[in-house]
């Protein structure tokens, strides 16, 4: 695994991988261990899980932060990013805890930033590969992408993908206010308004029955839109 990683160790030592986790006891260990084989700094932000996610994370992650009450994924990401910055991270990657992302994609995300070609990279499963993606979910994502193009005015090929990478300078500009899932659109707003250069890179997203169950349903998608509007209008 490690041998296939093209990034020099010095870059990997400057990289903090932030994994927000909420009730992920069945996957978290495997996800964190596979990350740690290549990246020394893996930060798990336990978002008030009711199961023993935090105990499992303590056994495998480099750093464990715990929200005493559940604040939502957006809040957990912001906490992880602030922590990584405080520990001197030069590169910050966000990675989902439900085992749908592949560790190999992290270097793909980092490479353009390391080369100084852009400040932010966003994973795109439609440039890359989406395994076991159902037709219903594909349709839902199409609507989300359309929403992104209309509202965020960014021409992207994917929306609400949890795989992203930021340079330190870019991460310092990120202030996620939407606690729950609307943070994905909010990050795009920040990108657009700050003028930070970004690029989409192909990634592989592997849907498992578990990640599908933990993912978003169409009904909840409407709630995300509502929360996004509230966060945007009432700052």
């Amino acid at each position, binding site marked *: 695994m490690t041998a296939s990683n093209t990034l020099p160790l010095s870059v990997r030592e400057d990289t903090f991988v932030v994994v927000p986790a909420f009730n992920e006891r069945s996957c978290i260990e495997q996800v964190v261990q596979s990350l740690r084989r290549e990246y020394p700094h893996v930060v798990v932000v336990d978002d008030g899980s009711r199961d023993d996610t935090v105990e499992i994370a303590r056994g495998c992650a480099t750093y464990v932060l715990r929200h005493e009450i559940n604040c939502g994924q957006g809040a957990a990401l912001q906490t992880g990013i602030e*922590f990584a910055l405080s520990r001197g991270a030069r590169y910050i990657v966000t990675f989902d805890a439900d085992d749908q992302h592949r560790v190999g994609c992290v270097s793909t995300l980092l490479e353009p930033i390391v080369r100084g070609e852009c400040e932010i990279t966003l994973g795109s499963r439609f440039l890359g590969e989406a395994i076991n993606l159902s037709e219903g979910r594909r349709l839902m994502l199409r609507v989300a992408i359309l929403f992104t193009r209309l509202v965020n005015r960014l021409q992207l090929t994917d929306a609400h993908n949890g795989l992203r990478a930021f340079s330190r300078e870019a991460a310092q500009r990120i202030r996620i206010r939407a606690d729950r899932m609307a943070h994905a659109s909010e990050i795009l707003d920040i990108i657009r308004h700050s003028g930070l250069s970004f690029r989409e890179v192909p990634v592989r997203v592997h849907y498992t029955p578990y990640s599908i169950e933990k993912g978003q349903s169409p009904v909840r998608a409407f709630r995300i839109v509502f929360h996004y509007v509230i966060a945007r209008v009432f700052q």
Partner: protein
Amino acid sequence: MSTFQIILLAALAAIFVFAIVLNRLRRTSFRTMFIVTVIWAVGSVATAWPDLTTLVARAVGIGRGADLLLYSAVVIMFVGFFMVYLRLVRLRRNITTLVRQAALHQAEGPLDSGTRDLKATGEGV
């Protein structure tokens, strides 16, 4: 004047006295007191002379005074709910800030030496 009107006026008067007492004790803002006074005055007038509401209703194209009251009550309640919702959003944000501060304060790690695994296997560089 019907019994219902008398009871309602008495209740309104009691609430107004209560509001004045509260104002004296806790020094609520002038704005709050002003709003309470206006609502109280309108309510009292509408109770004492219900026909007046019909006049106002006709003026804005609604048949009966009672309907006007119902419609405005619905609108006022929606605005009220929304204001409460916004207050909840702000409250959530404040809670998140507190939870985040606590989490950053009590952060655990490094839980074992960060780069040992990589260096031990001689990979990378």
